[in-house]
């Protein structure tokens, strides 16, 4: 099981988000844009925020799943984070 070598940091205070069962919306303060995200993305962001806004892939996956994560789980988190990184909501830095 490979450990993720990346730290994910929530880009605050620039971004804010709210999360419901049916989805998640993120707000960019720099230009007022709104982004529609999946419920899963919302869940992950909420957990990341609860962890102080910063975590590595392994820790984040554990928190989200409330269980020991499999390799695939961490992969999924990674892919999600890359997409969120492209939007600027999350920063990806080598651990």
């Amino acid at each position, binding site marked *: 099981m490979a450990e993720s070598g990346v730290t994910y940091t929530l880009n605050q205070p620039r971004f*804010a988000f709210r999360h419901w069962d*049916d989805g998640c919306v993120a*707000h960019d303060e720099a230009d007022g844009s*709104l982004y529609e995200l999946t419920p899963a993305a919302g869940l992950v962001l909420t957990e990341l925020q609860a962890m102080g806004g910063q975590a590595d892939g392994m820790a984040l996956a554990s928190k989200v799943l409330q269980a020991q994560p499999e390799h695939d789980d961490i992969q999924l988190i990674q892919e999600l984070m890359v997409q969120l990184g492209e939007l600027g909501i999350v920063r990806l830095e080598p651990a």
Partner: protein
Amino acid sequence: MKRRLIADTPLHTLQAQLASAGVFVAMPPFVVHIRSGIAVVAEGLHRMYAGQHWWAEEGEFADFRVEVRARRRWLRPMCEFQADGLQPFTPLALGEAFAMLEWGLNWCITGYCHHWLALHAAVLERGGRAVILPAPPGSGKSTLCASLMAHGWRLLSDELALIDPSTGLLTPCPRPISLKNASIDILRQRLPHVPMGPVAHDTLKGTVCHLQVNADSLARAAEPAMPGWVIFPRYQSGAPLSLQPRGKAEALLELQRNAFNRHVHGHRGFEVLADLVTRTGVYDFTYSQIDEALACFDALAAEQGAA
């Protein structure tokens, strides 16, 4: 400061004052100073604002000072709107002067209302909870709004939801309901006793007319309201009645399309709208029969607690 009820004032008195130094009119939550030498403006004001107060003496703070002036352009009689020296619109035909006043006032309010988070939406209240009806033009919102008001719902506004960002409550700003084309005839039939204003034909929006705000709504214009529902209405000829819950995330995105000053409030504006969809019942609503629609709204109001 002697405030007089417009209904108790002869038209010619109002008209004379309007044409000379102008009049102050209380249009809660605003005070507006209006000047105009145009007859149809005086008539419209006299009929549509009958239940409201006016006075002539300087001494109070006026939120806006507006003027509707007659002009001649290549021999055609026109009118132009001015807000304290600014002229936001191109001149219109003289017959549209009252409509121009109303549009001008909308412009003033939407330009200077950033104290609130503002949405293009109708707002009405029943039993202590308000329904917000965001809708683009042509969705039948005005017909529904006027019918609800006549049916016993308090009108806060037919066009503008003003949300206080610090409390989440809605501030009323009831003004004559603007009607277009088909809805004019529909409401004339439905509500024959409700005064309607001067009709302006061939405007950019078609035929345009206004409907008076009822006494109850005016009397309670200082009472804010707690939002209870956000309902996206859509009139569709022949369609069966349908009230479908809508996802919160999706609703927030739809709502923000109608929130024209959201960016001014930054994150706080976002949070206010997010709170709004979280705490209210959010629905899509399709209807073709007004009476069915009213019954549906009655049922909603009768439910205990938020949906």
